């Protein structure tokens, strides 16, 4: 673990001049040959060991270091003729257009020059945007000047002939011509044209010495056959060196100008594709297999490029990934880790005189027995693997200052994550719990913030390696610190599914004998017997629930049924507990506990409430089956009545339409009006039926219990199973796609009846007929499409938002500022309140008054 000893303060960008290139280089490349007969890199070749080494055995001839220590050194190629840098073609064109072809001055008179100069000098050095804007303005103003104000020379128009040629009056300017012109530009004029001459000279946009990246940047791979395969860049550079040599030879031999120019163009082509092999007007350079080479530009850009793949996203050690499975017996802030993983991931512990005996035990056990250790770090930074052979010696030399990398143990902090990491609760700190098996274990209550389920989801685990990282993980990331979401100030962890319906049933109607009640409570870990003293021979569910609450809790809230739930002095005296009280995103009780008793206590209480719900269900058993959807005959008839009535109404509407009695809504045609009215009627049917079922359903029906308690599903789901599925809609209309004038060929053309346009009268239980099934499949497919198209769109929106907002922070004066210290808000959210620390985004003033007055 290297300490941060160096800090990069700033990075300056610039353009290397030929002199810079020479200064920074260690080798001049003169031969296209890579290796000699022995397979050793050739001197002056592209793999010259003075540019760094890629073979483990060799040492760098520049710095004398080995493979790992030497980062590589640059070299250069002396080009026989200057070459245009493709990426600067536009810049060169601007320069040619803006300066005199004869004297090289900018096409502005001295007065104008002085004016612009004062403006530019007055700008802040960092205000690049204004500088650029001014430069653009200057260039625009020069467009139509045909005569140099300085030497009165006539100017001609210059055009680009893609990709890299310049034409002046249909005469081609060779790079040499261009270079002589750029050389003539004075620094002062270049500044006006957007150059900082300290870091970039206009003439540097023409390459005379080509900078060669170190070997380490383009390592060759040795194939299984022992054959060497060179990197794409090396291939490209080899071409460049070869052509360059031929060009030299031809020039020296006095070859005809045509041949020289051809070779020159070829060199230009190779250097162009060396920089960018994806240009539209240049045929890409290819491997012998026909696959295009990946050169410099392609290495940098796009999602797989250097920036986004390696620099903005980094890979780490001390991480694990595997399938997750549920374990309701572990705590919310724990994570079950298989022994196998625990023995690979380690925690570094520094040896002190106080822990040396303890750590020695880990070393003694070695890497193969748990809990042991894998490595010992000496104070000089050398890492020693613990094996049977080294064990004795390491034990002996172990002393304060050494670091032991011991196996992961219960209570260590780990960082747990599931992708997509859409919000900060997707990465939380958990306590390690080493368990048998091969999958990570997760309490189902924390599925919600991760958006995880157990149908094969995999999750990642990281072990922080420094004291600072561990402290941050514990204080800022552990599960209990994330109870309230900063998105809306609601709790993201709460009871779910069985635990909700369990608590619902318990507080609604259950009565237990004293023995059963105590058994239940002991079962979930409440073993303070003094609490059971007040139990009589019969104990109500509410009394049991109250045992879990703090004694001084006073709280009034409403549940899903709009019934008041009253907790007085830690006793639940009225109301049924449901998902609005203890559930995810709704749990008013959870937020109350969080506010008054702190996050650790809340997590503790929530955890036993969660277990209570599950254990309560286990007393009587709880299941849901197909007979939950059975309806009484009378109800079935009433539902049929509703459907028939609607069908009749629709028929009447259609009849009215055919008799031209229908009035069109403003700015709609009569047909559209009819459709709208029918759709409104049909959409109502399912809700009406749902209400009917809700009114008549038995409160003992498990499906109804689940729906009413908010554990899972709703009445409409039940209605779809037992009574009718209802109208299927595509983009807010009835189904109309398909054949001409009809949805399916078995209907009449122009038919408008509910049945023919996606109204499903059957229920899932009795089954759909083929047309209904088909309509159902249509909407099902549509919603699949919608999800598939939405994910990338919202992902891109998120990426843009994150990129634009990432460096905005709260300053010490509570203003919101960006990285340039520009103020965005004077006070965050106009009142400086943190959503995650508030009650749904506000301070509960009414509640405070109630507290004070005691009402």
């Amino acid at each position, binding site marked *: 673990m290297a300490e*941060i000893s160096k800090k990069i*303060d700033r*990075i*300056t*960008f610039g*353009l290397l001049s030929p002199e810079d290139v020479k200064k920074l280089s260690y080798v001049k490349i003169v031969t296209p040959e890579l290796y000699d007969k022995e397979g050793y890199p050739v001197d002056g070749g592209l793999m010259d060991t003075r540019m760094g080494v890629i073979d483990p055995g060799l040492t760098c001839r520049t710095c004398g270091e080995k493979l790992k220590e030497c980062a590589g050194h640059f070299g250069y190629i002396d080009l026989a003729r200057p070459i245009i840098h493709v*990426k*600067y073609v536009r810049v060169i064109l601007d320069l040619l257009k803006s300066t005199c072809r004869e004297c090289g001055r900018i096409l502005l008179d001295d007065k104008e020059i002085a004016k612009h100069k004062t403006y530019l000098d007055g700008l802040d050095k*960092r205000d*690049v945007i204004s*500088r650029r804007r001014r430069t653009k303005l200057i260039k625009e103003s020069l467009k139509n000047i045909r005569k140099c104000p300085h030497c009165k020379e006539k100017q001609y128009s210059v055009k680009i002939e893609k990709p890299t040629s310049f034409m002046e009056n249909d005469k081609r300017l060779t790079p040499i011509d261009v270079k002589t012109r750029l050389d003539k530009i004075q620094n002062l004029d270049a500044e006006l044209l957007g150059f900082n001459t300290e*870091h970039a000279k206009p003439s540097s946009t023409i390459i005379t010495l080509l900078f060669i990246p170190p070997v380490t940047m383009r390592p060759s791979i040795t194939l299984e056959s022992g054959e060497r395969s060179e990197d794409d860049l090396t291939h490209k550079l080899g071409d460049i060196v070869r052509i360059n040599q031929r060009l030299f030879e031809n020039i020296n031999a006095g070859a005809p100008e045509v041949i020289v120019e051809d070779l020159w163009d070829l060199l230009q082509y190779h250097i162009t594709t060396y920089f960018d092999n994806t240009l539209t007007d240049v045929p890409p350079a290819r491997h012998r297999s026909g696959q295009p080479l990946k050169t410099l530009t392609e290495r940098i*850009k796009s999602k797989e*490029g250097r920036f986004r793949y390696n*620099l*903005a996203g*980094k890979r780490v050690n001390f991480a694990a990934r595997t399938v997750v499975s549920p374990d309701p017996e572990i705590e919310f802030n724990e994570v079950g880790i298989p022994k196998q993983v625990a023995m690979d991931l380690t925690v570094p512990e520094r040896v002190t005189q106080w822990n040396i005996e303890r750590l020695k035990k880990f070393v003694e056990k070695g890497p193969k027995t748990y809990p042991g250790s894998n490595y010992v770090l000496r104070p000089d930074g050398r890492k020693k693997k613990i094996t049977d052979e080294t064990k004795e010696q390491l034990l002996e030399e172990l002393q304060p200052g050494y670091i032991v990398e011991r196996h992961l143990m219960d209570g260590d902090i780990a960082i747990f994550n599931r992708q997509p990491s*859409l*919000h900060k609760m997707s990465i939380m700190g958990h306590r390690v719990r080493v368990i048998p098996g091969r999958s990570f274990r997760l309490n189902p209550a924390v599925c919600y913030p991760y958006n995880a389920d157990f149908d094969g989801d995999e999750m990642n685990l990281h072990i922080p390696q420094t004291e600072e990282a561990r402290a*941050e993980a514990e204080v800022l990331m552990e599960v209990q610190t994330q109870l309230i979401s*900063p*998105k*809306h*100030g*609601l709790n993201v962890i709460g009871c779910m599914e069985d635990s909700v319906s369990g608590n619902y049933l318990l507080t609604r109607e259950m009565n237990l004998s004293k023995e059963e009640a105590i058994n239940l409570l002991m079962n979930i870990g409440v073993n303070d017997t003094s609490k059971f003293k007040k139990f009589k021979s019969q104990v109500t569910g509410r009394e049991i629930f109250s045992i879990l609450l703090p004694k001084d809790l006073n709280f009034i809230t409403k549940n899903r049924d709009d019934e008041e739930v009253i907790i007085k002095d830690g006793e639940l005296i009225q109301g049924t507990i449901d998902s609005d009280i203890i559930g995810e995103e709704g749990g008013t009780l959870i937020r109350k506990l969080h506010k008054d008793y702190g996050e650790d206590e809340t997590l503790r209480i929530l955890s036993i409430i969660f277990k209570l719900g599950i254990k309560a269900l286990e007393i009587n058993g709880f299941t849901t089956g197909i007979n939950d959807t059975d309806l009484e005959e009378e109800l079935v008839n009433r539902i049929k009545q509703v459907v028939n009535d609607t069908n009749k109404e629709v028929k009447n509407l259609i009849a009215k339409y055919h008799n031209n009695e229908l009035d069109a809504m403003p*700015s709609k045609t009569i047909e559209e009006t009819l459709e709208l009215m029918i759709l409104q009627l049909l959409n109502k049917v399912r809700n009406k039926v749902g209400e009917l079922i809700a009114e008549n359903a038995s409160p003992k029906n498990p499906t109804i219990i689940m729906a009413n308690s908010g554990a899972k599903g709703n009445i409409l789901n039940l209605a779809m199973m037992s009574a009718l599925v209802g109208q299927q809609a595509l983009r*807010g209309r009835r189904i109309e796609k398909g054949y001409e004038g009809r949805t399916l060929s078995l209907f009449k053309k122009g038919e408008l009846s509910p049945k023919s346009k996606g109204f499903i009268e059957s229920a899932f239980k009795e089954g759909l007929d083929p047309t209904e099934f088909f309509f159902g499949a249509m909407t099902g497919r549509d919603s699949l499409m*919608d999800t598939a*198209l939405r*994910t990338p769109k*919202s992902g891109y*929106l*998120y990426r*843009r938002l*994150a*990129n*634009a*907002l*990432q*460096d*905005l922070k*709260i300053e010490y004066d*509570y203003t*919101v500022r960006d*990285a*340039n210290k520009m103020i*965005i*808000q004077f006070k*965050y*959210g106009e*009142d400086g*309140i*943190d*959503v995650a620390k*508030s009650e749904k*985004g506000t*301070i509960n003033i*009414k509640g405070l008054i109630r507290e*004070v*007055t005691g009402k």
Partner: protein
Amino acid sequence: MSEEYKDQLPLSIWEEAQKELKNNNLTKKQEKEFFDKLIETYKSSRITPGESIGVITAESFGEPGTQMTLNIFHFAGVAELNVTLGLPRLIEIFDARKEASTPSMEIYLDKEYNKDINAAKRIAALIKETKFWELAQEFSINIAKLQVEVTLNKKNMRDLRITDQMLLKTLSESMKDTTVRQNKDDTIVLKPSKENTELKELYKLKEKAKETFIKGISGVTQVLPIKQNNEFVILTAGSNLKEVFKLKEVDKSRSTSNDIFEVLKALGIEAARQAIINEALKVIREQGLDVDIRHILFIADLMTASGTVKGITRSGITSDKESVLARASFETPIRHIIDASLLGEEDELTSVIENVIVNQPVPLGTGLPGLIARIKKPEAK
């Protein structure tokens, strides 16, 4: 007596406290206790300096974004008007696109007019952009006489309050080189002034006539007076706020458009900020999602902080970043590096992504504070 606490609380909370105090009679002692508690609560709910609030806001929109629908057409209160909602609309707002896909206005009327449906209808007719084809029953070409004949739709004309004279006048003004006159049977005849016109030109004339602007406010294709909270409000498809504000019957203090640039042009940057807030809130609410208002305020403030509306795109907010690496790591890295090289730009590594790139602590949260310690020099032995 509670004035002394005013400085310690944000205005909105203080005002709410005042309101609640009025409703409840508290003794002086209770009131003091209340304020002490309130201030304590406020202090404990304050946001922590160093909090990377930008990322939190981005996440607060990114996460619900995955739950929004893509179906763009939904009905906005009234069944007759279509308005883009859902994820596409949210993207549109944050992009600050110049062309909204479904611009629309909500026009409130002054007191004298807003109780009467006929007055509302009259004003609506004034606003609606009317083209000639809407007033015609049939366009036909009379080959013998080489002219275009238009049968008028008298009912539509009455609804839109257009008289024959008005129509004739506007038509002859806007149709050059054409004589416009009305026959006795209420058809309008358009005859090119030039002799011997070709048939092709007649067709052209016919098509041009159809699209001729007669009256109203250009861009407003649909108007719909509806009753809302005991007054008549005109909803429109198409937006032209600046022109609407010229009408004297319009209540300028309440009428709005959903087109942010329209609002910017007509009312200025603060109004544009409010428009962004309202529109984003509309989308979030309509989708049944729950995002705190602070996040919306935050984005609106960021988009308008420079004085103009800037989108959250590579050409908007991101292009204003000082750091070369921050811009390069978002989109089009090569271009940014090349441009930076010419100006000798310096990246001072003040924001997040640059420091991630060079493996240094990020200046946010726990990476923000620096520790300055005064260390005594060890005394020479």
